[in-house]
């Protein structure tokens, strides 16, 4: 049986510097809540989860940028954020690889789940698509996340 987490005990307090990001993270949290509670009316079934993927991507990107690009947060704080689910470590791991710098979600590179063992359409570079071909992938609503775009 996994340990029961309460608000009182167990959880470590955030390291220094968390208060700088707190507002932005709270905003993301609220956005996520709105997306979760949004009505499904007039939407396709697979469209429902798009905003969730998008917000996750944005939030992960935010933390990734702060740590790797701007070097604004400390290692302990970064680890704490990952541990507490503020960013998706699997996604960030992909961003560090060449060719995956803009990856929208990890589901889009899953070749196991597609009919022809290929990646999602959003991984195809724009210049290899037909002229004026607009794509939006089913899994997360991405319009193209190839690194060359």
């Amino acid at each position, binding site marked *: 049986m996994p340990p029961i987490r309460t608000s009182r005990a167990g959880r470590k*307090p*955030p390291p220094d510097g968390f208060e*700088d990001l707190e507002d932005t993270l709270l*905003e993301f949290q609220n956005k996520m809540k709105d997306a979760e509670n949004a009505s499904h009316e007039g939407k396709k079934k697979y469209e429902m989860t798009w905003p969730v993927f998008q917000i996750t991507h944005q939030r992960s990107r935010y933390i990734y*940028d702060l740590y790797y690009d*701007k*070097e604004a947060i400390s290692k302990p704080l970064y680890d704490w954020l990952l541990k507490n689910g503020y960013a998706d470590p699997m996604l960030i791991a992909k961003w560090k690889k060449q060719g995956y710098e803009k990856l929208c979600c990890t589901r889009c590179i899953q070749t196991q789940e597609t009919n022809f063992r290929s990646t999602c359409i959003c991984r195809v570079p724009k210049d290899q698509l037909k002229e004026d071909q607009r794509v939006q992938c089913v899994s997360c609503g991405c319009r193209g996340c190839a690194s060359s775009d």
Partner: protein
Amino acid sequence: MATIPSGPPPAMMPLPAGWTEHTAPTGHMYYFHKETNKSTYVRPAPEVPLVQSPMHALPPRPPPFSFDAEANHDNVNPTAPQFSSNAKQQMQNLIFGGPPPRHSHQDRGQQQRGGHRGGFRGGHNSFQDQRRAPQDRPKHRDDIPNCAPWVLVRTKLGRRFVWNKDTNESFWKFPPDVMKGVVEFDRIQRERKERRERGEPSDAEDDAAMAEVEADLAAMEEEVEQQVVEVDGEVGMDDDEEYEEVEVTDDEGDEAGNASKRQRTEEPVDDQPVEMGEDDIAWQLAQMEAMEGDYGEEQEEEEEGLPLTDEDLRALFKELLDDTQLSPYTPWDKFLSEGALFEDERYKALPTMKARKDCFSEWCKERIQMQKEQKANQPKQDPKVQYMAFLDKFASKKLYWAEFRRKYRKDPEMKDAKLSDKEKETLYRDYVKKMR
């Protein structure tokens, strides 16, 4: 020639004793003094000097267009055009800080269209140069058909206003009856232009009128310099003035550029009066501070033609980011969605979104580094101190720890993660024990 107003006294002021009003063969009014045998285009002021309104107190500058128009705040023409053309005046502006240049939507847009804004110059310091921006002044005058005393004046910066020859009133916003005349006039102008474009020779009287107007302008400029033009003979001076005109106009540095601009203004004719309305003035005032700097730079840019370095542009963009007052921890998307960026001229300092984003992350890095250093310099505060102060305020004998915690759970001191819950609890219990 004195028809373009420049005389200090307001319209209805009676002439001082000895002066008489006459009409020159060209149709302009002039004033003649019998005893001294002096004549002038400037309406002579009465003996008692006018009390200047505080608005004009700052720099000594040529008298405003008409006091009536300026003092009249009820109708929405708070600023009648002001003229400063002589070098001395510009010098004074430079020293004392002249009034800010007034620009309208129209000429801003135009400058951009015409590719006249060469971008921005200088980094943080160059904003002090804004004072050097040249002032607006009347450039061109046309009679409005069927609106006898009203005259349409175009300024150096391409804006237009109407001026009543008789009452010496001037308005940025065209009064309704004059508006009709202006629209009619614009139509005629357009037709004439089209005709010219079709290659038909422009009628001779047209050219003559142009020449006359040019002469007027030159004379007006001359006048502002000297304030009083003394003439021996009443007739025969036109030629002199026309001769002078050539010199004066050639002295103007960016005359040619402005001339071309002016012609372009004529195209969107019908909506122009609307543009000159209240919104325009309000907009001007609002933008005055923000845009002035850019303008000054642009003007200078035109004069000197120095290209902006990449660094300058980035510095400019960073300054804009500074001005947003947002935390450097804010994501880029948020900056964009705030909308404050787009409205600013400095946003266009960098041409592409990618460049902007790069500049943004650079700025973030710098700012965060700076903030960190500041924080490091500040003495660290013990979280216990704050918590004890909080307890001193709110702790009560009647509340157990659990109740107390629930009651004040939203206060920052209770949320403070640096002090663990256990510590908070023991501190509270001790404190309450001491109270008993």
